[in-house]
């Protein structure tokens, strides 16, 4: 119950933000933090709770993003209909990759490599088929109205908050449901989980489907907010890396880890931008260094600092 209270308090604080702050800069900052949080939550579901480290989450992000734009631009769908359809496409991509790699028992580095390879395959395909606009990419026409899921800053903040709440409630559910217990058992030892009667394949498949669905929702949000997608943004390695940074910095396998990590990383990014100006690459050097330092010295993330040494 304490966790539900924390989730409600967090939602209330964010929801009240636009009433007190009208600065577009601050609202945009909040939106970007929550956007990173969402990507991090998606990755955290599979890696933190399921023990499967994907290096190709861009696959699901890009599939959601492309599906959302293509359905609206090519088929004239309404954005609110395109969202669930795009999320379904992303989840389907997750099931496809999961069914293949879990069926053939790929784990650890092999799983990371195969997900990365799948994302690359999709990137090359998106570059060369007409449906995605090839290397030119796809443009989502500007049409600011709630019916087209294009809002002002405050509206977008509520949209991304709603998606992040779905992620938070999913982790809350994982911690108290039978399925969550199965998933934790699989993460901590597949053989022993199987020996206890857990259907390892089914559990991992469901986890990757959930993770992919959340990630593709992030892709849909991206195109609604930025109006543009191309193969490199959609399926390039940058998004896959962004998704894993926040939970690792914040705390892997915890409900609020991705949010904590996203806040820390955003602050770090702003700080380096202020210190070093607009020299390209400097803020990413800081991100990479933080990643190395976290794994070396704080493998349980920032959240581990608060959790004490007992757990």
């Amino acid at each position: 119950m304490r966790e539900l209270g924390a989730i409600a308090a967090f939602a209330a604080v964010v929801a009240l933000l636009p009433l007190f702050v009208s600065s577009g800069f601050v609202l945009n900052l909040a939106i970007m933090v929550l956007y990173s949080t969402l990507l991090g939550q998606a990755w955290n579901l599979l890696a933190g709770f399921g023990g499967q480290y994907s290096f190709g989450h861009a696959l699901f992000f890009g599939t959601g993003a492309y599906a959302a734009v293509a359905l609206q631009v090519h088929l004239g769908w309404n954005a609110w209909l395109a969202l669930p359809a795009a999320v379904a496409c992303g989840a389907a991509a997750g099931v496809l990759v999961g069914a293949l790699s879990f069926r053939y028992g790929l784990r650890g580095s092999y799983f990371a490599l195969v997900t990365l390879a799948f994302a690359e395959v999709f990137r090359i395909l998106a570059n060369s088929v007409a449906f995605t606009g090839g290397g030119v990419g796809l443009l989502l026409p500007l049409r600011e109205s709630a019916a087209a899921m294009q809002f002002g800053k405050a509206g977008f903040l509520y949209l991304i908050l709603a998606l992040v709440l779905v992620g938070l409630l999913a982790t809350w559910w994982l911690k108290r449901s039978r399925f969550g217990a199965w998933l934790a058992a699989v993460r901590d030892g597949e053989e022993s989980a199987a020996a206890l009667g857990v259907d390892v394949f089914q559990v991992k498949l469901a986890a990757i489907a959930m993770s992919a669905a959340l990630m593709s929702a992030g892709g849909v949000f991206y195109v609604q907010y930025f109006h543009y997608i191309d193969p490199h943004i959609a399926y390039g390695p940058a998004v896959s890396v962004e998704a894993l940074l926040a939970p690792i910095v914040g705390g892997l396998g915890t409900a609020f880890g991705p949010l904590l990590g996203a806040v820390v990383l955003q602050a770090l990014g702003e700080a380096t931008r202020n210190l070093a100006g607009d020299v390209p690459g400097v803020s990413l050097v800081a991100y990479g260094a933080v990643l190395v330092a976290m794994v070396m010295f704080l493998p349980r993330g920032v959240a581990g600092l608060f959790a004490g040494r007992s757990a």
Partner: protein
Amino acid sequence: MLDFQIVCAALLNGLTQGAVYALVALGLTLIYGVLHIVNFAHGALLMAALYGVFFLSARLGIDPYAALPVMIAVMFVLGYALQRFVIGPARHGRDENVLLVTLGLAIVLENAALAAFKSDTRTIETAYTFSTVNVAGAMVAVPKVAAFFGALAVAALMLLLVSRTDLGRAIRAVAKEPQGARLVGIDVEHVLAMSFGIGLACLGAAACFLLPAYYVNPQVGNGFVLIAFTVVVLGGMGSFAGALAGGLIVGVIESLGGLWLGESLGQLGIFVVFIAILLFRPRGLFGRA
């Protein structure tokens, strides 16, 4: 049907490109194939080595092939230190941590290069950059021929090292049974760091053979990471002859794929083969079960 002549030229082109892939992958064969250290920074470290060769050549006028001993020594020391003081301590008993820490290293290296050298693509010009030799009726650039024989030489040296020397015996022992190796008195951390250093020394050599026919920019390593892993897995984890053959096969797949599917789809074949190998034959083409 395509002209026989064109297919032959594409085949030859694929083999020379494949030799480059093999050269890059040989270091990873020791690091990942034998010792299962998942080095995601392999491409970024190659980029760093290429910049080293570039500046030795552009600033000090040292010929890339003459830079071989320098680059091999520098990369060996870098590799030893990285494994001993960064990657090893970050492992905490889990391979996933190695994955993440080398990814972090790759991000740092790539963006530090971007901040220091900008994203300009640089090449060097040597007396032999544009000279060619006639191989079976087709013209092949001299640096590519050198890279081909460089790959053969490095593969042979690595094979000798691992199969014939005391260090090689220790490496195999650590790979098979780290705990047992420690019990019989092998300094496991030292052997791991030596292996990582030797793997990077291979990269240093690869950079010397690569630059005369290639270019360097901060992103140049990205294209090699997944291909290097593909070659290692395709050749059978830890087999040097396999990595050589795997590199050549990958080069030919890319070249023929580009010929039949169009340039932009050429690399598709590589990753499809990689996925298929991982799923259906994870021990690789030449690996033992």
